[in-house]
């Protein structure tokens, strides 16, 4: 569960909706890698993102701080950010640090993507 390197995969799911799959340790380096992937998707026209953390078992507060910065940039562009496949500990960490107040938290990728379709955000 403690791989130091993070594995990322990015996909454009639909017009304006990007997906980042992140598996590994979200620390300063892992968080920055996610931020770079988010910037690339936003630069490519995605104003909303789903970040799928399936395969991520451990995080630290520095990594979550970087995720908070991604959230702020997405919100500045009137987009939305959603997370899915969180472990209970990661979900609790997001709650403690307030990330869940501004980003959607969903049990799986399908639910996260569907929320954007219902929302009409993308």
């Amino acid at each position, binding site marked *: *569960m*403690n791989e*130091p390197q993070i594995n990322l995969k990015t996909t454009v799911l639909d017009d304006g909706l990007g997906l980042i799959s992140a598996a590994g*340790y979200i*620390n300063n380096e892992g968080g920055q890698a996610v931020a770079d992937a988010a910037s690339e998707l936003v630069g490519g026209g995605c104003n909303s993102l789903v970040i799928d953390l399936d395969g991520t*078992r*451990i*995080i*630290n*507060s*520095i990594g*979550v*701080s970087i995720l*908070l*910065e991604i959230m*702020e940039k997405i919100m500045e562009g009137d987009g939305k950010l959603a997370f899915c496949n969180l*472990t*209970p*500990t*990661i979900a*609790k*960490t997001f*709650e*403690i*640090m*307030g*990330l869940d*107040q*501004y980003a959607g938290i969903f049990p799986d990728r399908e639910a996260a993507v569907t929320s954007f379709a219902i929302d009409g955000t993308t």
Partner: protein
Amino acid sequence: MEVVLHLPAVPNVELVAAKAVETLGEALGMDRDGIEAVSVALVEACLNAMEHGGSSFIVRLAKESGKPSRMRVEVEDQGRGFDPDACPPDDSTRVHGCVSKRGWGLTLIRELMDDVQISSKPGKTRVCMWKELENAP
């Protein structure tokens, strides 16, 4: 059963400590959620020790018998020390729009663990925390 790690302050060494929690937690019958909560709390304590504590620090993991039995996790460093009472719990409402998003370590430790005691003076800081072993034999 006790694990003692003398760790250098090098990048990602906190994952060595987290791996030890995983191994000991499984041996003690701790459930996956418990192991992950202890791992994240320990990672934060290790990061604090590396940031404020100097070139190395010590991690001790042990089972404490009792009702319920618990895993005890200690992180000890030889840094300049700090006043834990001067670090009140963070407020999640401060996050959005706030320039500094750092400084959540102690809050996460306190929230993720069942009990936390911190003693600190110049040259020796010890963060001691406990998690119940709900599924322990």
